[in-house]
């Protein structure tokens, strides 16, 4: 089932959580809402679920207006960040809850409930825990039970609020791959909220990047990473070096450096170039250099080496990531004078970038 969000507006007192947000979730896709805390992503998810009412705008489920449908009738599955398992019920009763609260006329029989619950528990690989209480489970197990519980009512839409937020790193990685493969099997329209860009890029079909109550960019993980639409998206997706220069006749220029731009900003003038550390090459030759400076720190971290160069022009540290091989080739030492050259830049007019300068 597709979800359409039209011009949603939501304020909490003075705080604008969502400012005229529109978005379409295609039927069967797994969509990530990504952004820093306070960007409005959880509010949007709760509005889709019907847990919050928008001040203005519409939510359409499969083309039908559902804005005023009560949450208990929307047939959404919602997995809460802290799982919200019922502590006084066994795992079985938790999963069965959605079936047993149905009106008598449409409530499945005892045997059918049992069968469906056990099928779901098998699906999440926890059928052996049916009689346990939530307090006896690990975080990852609780997460999977919460998921099974929300699936029991055969929701048309599955909504997950920071589904891996409360787990430790190892379990987190396992569980997100598991969720991805589960989605591949079930193809239920799913939306999940996260503040972790790695998680969003790895798991989802499409990513929605949000900030300050509006959508910055919507796209596949590749699009988002390779062609960030705004300075915010560029910076939010990972570490980045900033260079303040100018755009002239389709080129970004800074001192002697000039790089042709495929999609140059329309107007010339002040501009900022963003370069990721692994797109920054270090060399001992001045040719084609964007900046030069002195090597200040070298951190070898496993297969990669992070090198910090104090730029002579601005005095700011630049960060570059090299492979171990390249690092050995260069034979870098602290205090060496080196040149940096970008292999890939994203350029934005200076005004846009100002808010986000680190």
């Amino acid at each position, binding site marked *: 089932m597709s979800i359409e969000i039209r011009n949603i507006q939501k304020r909490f007192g003075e705080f604008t959580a969502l400012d005229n947000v529109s978005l379409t979730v295609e039927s069967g896709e797994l969509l990530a809402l990504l952004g820093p805390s306070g960007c409005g992503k959880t509010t949007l998810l*709760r509005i889709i679920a019907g*847990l*919050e009412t928008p001040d203005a705008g519409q939510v359409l489920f499969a083309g039908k207006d559902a804005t005023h449908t009560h949450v208990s009738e929307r047939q959404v599955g919602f997995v809460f960040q802290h799982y919200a398992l019922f502590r006084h019920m066994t795992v079985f009763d938790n999963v069965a809850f959605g079936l047993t609260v149905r009106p008598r006329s449409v409530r499945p029989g005892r045997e059918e409930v049992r069968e469906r619950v056990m099928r779901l528990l098998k699906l999440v690989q926890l059928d052996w825990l049916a009689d346990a209480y939530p307090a006896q489970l690990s975080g990852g197990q609780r997460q999977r039970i919460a998921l099974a519980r929300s699936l029991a009512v055969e929701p048309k839409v599955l909504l997950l609020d920071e589904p891996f937020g409360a787990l430790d790193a190892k379990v987190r990685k396992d569980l997100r791959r598991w969720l991805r493969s589960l989605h591949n099997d079930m193809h239920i329209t799913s939306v999940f909220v996260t503040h972790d860009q790695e998680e969003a890029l790895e798991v989802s079909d499409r990513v929605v990047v949000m900030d300050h109550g509006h959508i910055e960019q919507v796209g596949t993980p590749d699009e988002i990473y390779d062609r960030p639409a705004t300075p915010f998206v560029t910076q939010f997706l990972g570490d980045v070096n900033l260079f303040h220069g100018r755009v002239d006749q389709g080129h970004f220029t800074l001192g002697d450096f000039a790089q042709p731009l495929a999609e140059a900003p329309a107007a010339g003038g002040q501009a900022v170039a963003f370069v990721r550390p692994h797109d920054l090459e270090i060399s001992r030759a001045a040719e084609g250099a964007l900046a030069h400076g002195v090597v200040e720190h070298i951190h070898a971290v496993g297969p990669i080496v992070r090198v910090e160069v104090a730029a002579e022009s601005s005095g700011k540290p630049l960060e570059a990531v090299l492979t171990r091989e390249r690092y050995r080739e260069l034979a870098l030492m602290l205090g060496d004078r080196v040149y940096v050259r970008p292999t890939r830049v994203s350029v934005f007019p200076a005004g846009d970038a100002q808010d986000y300068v680190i």
Partner: protein
Amino acid sequence: MSSANPASLRTTTESRPVRYALTALALAFVVLFLVIPLVSVFWEAFSKGWGLYREALVEPEALSAIRLTLLTALIAVPFNVVFGVAAAWAIARFEFRGKSLLTTLIDLPFSVSPVVAGMMYVLLFGINTPVGAWLDANGFKVIFAVPGIVLATVFVTFPFVARELIPLMQAQGADEEQAALVLGASGWQTFRRVTLPNIKWGLLYGVILTNARAMGEFGAVSVVSGHIRGETNTIPLHVEILYNEYNFVGAFASASILALLALVTLAAKTFVEWRMTRQHAAARTRTAEARAAA
């Protein structure tokens, strides 16, 4: 974000009529069982005018009852502070065998009827018991005298301070005290400069409760007092005597002092609770910040 959402805006709450009906029912209960009895005490006390009210409070027997009540509280409260701090220090800071037994025994006075509490002192110090007879022969009266009243009061208030401090000190842990010792503080300095500031609001809370109960205790004191007018009557006992003599203005006048004490107690208690939540919240923020920084 959702926590900033006031309760009234929750999508998951009862419908308005249900909320209003339940609130009205609860408030009606509060008015019937709490507000009206409280108001009636003052109403009855002043029913015959200010003059009679004042007269009822300045007569010698009333003054003597007030003096005895203050004296009793003045002994019981410091006693409970010393005991409570000592017990909390031992229980919350050390592991020893018999700890849970000690904790249970401290709570024991709460599960004993005040009348039975008073009776136990009569059984121990009464004139026809061995101990009581010996004390009496040496010119020392406990039962039907002030020492008995003080003992019974201490008994019924026994757990208040300890019960407040033990969970508080257990929750705070011994890290700060250990840090103080490592920095070279003596045991006494550690207690005075680290422990005491941390538990002061909890201690004050216990003192407020102890004081209220000490000044208002009726059952236990009634058994050991002997009701000797002008000598062994506390305010509550004085109230009883006047009431039984159909001197309602006098009874309610004395009762109004105790009701006023109750109101002061509630106000002080609310204030201390507010301070404690603030301290608690501040501590929580600090830990959260420390964790975020780590």
